[in-house]
């Protein structure tokens, strides 16, 4: 009972932590093309969306399509996307093939053991985090439901307007 009480305390504490209580994001990732990317280099230029996804996750692929459209629409204004693939070693070879067929041009990092997902306390995918030019998370989305892209676009526009 004591343990359960402690748990309830911890649970309420977590719920009441401000949803976006994160420090400046510092992250170095290796892309699917064996290139290293510092995320700080990306957000210095404009808003960055980090999107965790996998080939086996059908909502991720639906979301990926709308992300591609948003990227094409706003990339010239400084917006970029960093996709972080969560496929395990068994299917990571197919990821490049999928990206090529979908003509996805934004960088994709691989995270076969979910180490990066854990850094952001992710337990399920798709999981998206929008980062402003100061490197702070300003918007999050767990899962994907049709219409999410409309909310996300509004957040991107807000950040881009603030940049001007």
């Amino acid at each position: 009972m004591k343990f359960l009480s402690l748990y309830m305390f911890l649970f309420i504490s977590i719920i009441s932590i401000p949803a976006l209580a994160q420090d400046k994001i510092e992250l170095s990732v290796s892309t699917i093309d064996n290139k290293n990317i510092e995320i700080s280099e990306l957000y210095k230029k404009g808003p960055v969306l980090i999107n965790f996804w996998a080939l086996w996750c059908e909502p991720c692929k639906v979301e990926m399509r709308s992300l591609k459209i948003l990227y094409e629409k706003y990339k010239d204004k400084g917006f970029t996307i960093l996709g972080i693939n969560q496929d395990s070693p068994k299917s990571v070879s197919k990821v490049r093939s999928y990206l090529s067929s979908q003509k996805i041009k934004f960088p994709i990092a691989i995270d076969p053991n979910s180490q990066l997902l854990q850094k952001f306390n992710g337990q399920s995918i798709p999981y998206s985090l929008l980062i402003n030019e100061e490197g702070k998370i300003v918007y999050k989305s767990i899962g994907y439901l049709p219409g999410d892209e409309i909310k996300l676009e509004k957040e991107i526009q807000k950040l881009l307007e603030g940049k001007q």
Partner: protein
Amino acid sequence: MILIIQKVIFAQSVVPSASNLLRYGDGERIFGTLKLKQKYFENLTDVRVSFPQSFTVGFRMLYDDPPEVGETFRGISRRYIEYNNANIYLRAGNSSALFGRGLALNLFENRGLAYDTWMDGVQLKYSPDFFNVTLLGGTIDYRDSVSITRHEIYKLRGGNFEFQPFDEILFGISYIYAEGKIPQGSVNSGIPPKNIKAEIPEFYFSLNLNKLSVYLDWSRKWTNLIENKISSTGWALYGAVSYLGEGYGVTLDYKNYSFDILDPYGRDDLSRPTRMLPFQNPPIVQKEHSYTLLTRALHEVNFNDEVGLQLDAFYALNDNTTLNFNTSFSSIHDRYELNGFTFNRIKRAGNFLPSFDKEFFPYYEVFLEGEHYYDISSAVRLAAAFRQYTFFNEFSFDKSSTVTSSFVIPVQIQNVFSGNYSLTFQSEHERVSEEFNGTTDKFFNHLITIINSFYSNLTATIRFEYTTSDKDVSGRKNWLSGEIGYRLMQSHVITASYGKERGGLACSNGVCRYIQPFEGFRLAILSQI
């Protein structure tokens, strides 16, 4: 008090983040006429606290009592301290790890399957521009996912060196040394555990050109049984070639897993100490499906004795239409002939490729899916999959076999009516045939899922499954369930469901577990903060 704690935390620029998963279920497990009450309560809290000077402390509090799968646990199940700055990453405590494609080492967790090979120890990584060095050492307390009361304990030491002279080329070498204690027989059998020492070196190479990528990974495993003074040697090879063009990509994967080729007596002994060890987990070289009826596996990958190929291709007909074709084919290497009470191994010429002959337990699969978007997120998906697995009874003189074939047609229509409402309709139809000694048992399964989504926050789902099979373990012919999901703010998802769930054999990363049928209420609250 909570607010005070938070104020103190933020004032010192110490940044906490957390995720919480609460799962509760109350219902029954049904096996034919037998109904067993089942109640579970699980609360899992992962907390990370980042300090200045690149330090992070994290822990997992787990209250799993009574558990849905696995063992009862109350307390801190994970804790670690991490230092990550410039080229150096140091972590002490619990951690996962992956070398290459996992032929020598792949430490991961899948809670749904009660599979966890995370290590408790130290991991150091040094990554300047042209190379990476990783050293690790620790202990794995592994509970078998099929029989979770079996504990295997391994002391692990290892290292990995990756050299990347150019962006396009990478060479990797790994070495793992493990000492393990492997229980024999059932928990109360009184048979002492086997002590083993294992050495696993690995070499891999990766070439990533603009259009072509090649990956090759080879590993060898020596296992020494200390008490018996016996040693066993096995090896594994994995390769992948991908070619990319404008609007298409093709990948060919190859596996040749020979970690522990044994006759049928040895092969069926899951507690044998010479088999592939649980901290290894190579690619399965089969498609991982997202359609429900296709996720119920016909074939479990045998990492100790299996050779196979997979071809996967994506092709975009235009900006809105994509095709995905996948085919995979696997079998064991050699066949065995019963000679009295022992088996003679008959080597197969060309056993580096799979065989369709029934004596080699062939499994093959052909999958084709077309996806067409007629709006930003409104789409139609149509797929067809054929799978066939042959189980050969080597103990019978009449060379009997069971051939299970499955043909599945999934259809999904997802339509966004407005920014406030969308509807997804999914139908999966499966025809199954089981042939044994000239007799054929045929039945079909049909699953319908309807998902209503309101304001991108609220979902209402209905699932209905029907079968004509008389052999389902639950004794049922139909299963109906409903689910309500609500996304609260940006960080919380609440899901409640009620009804009957069929269960089945679920696999991930080559790890399989039978998910039992369930009838009752489930609640899940997920928070990622």
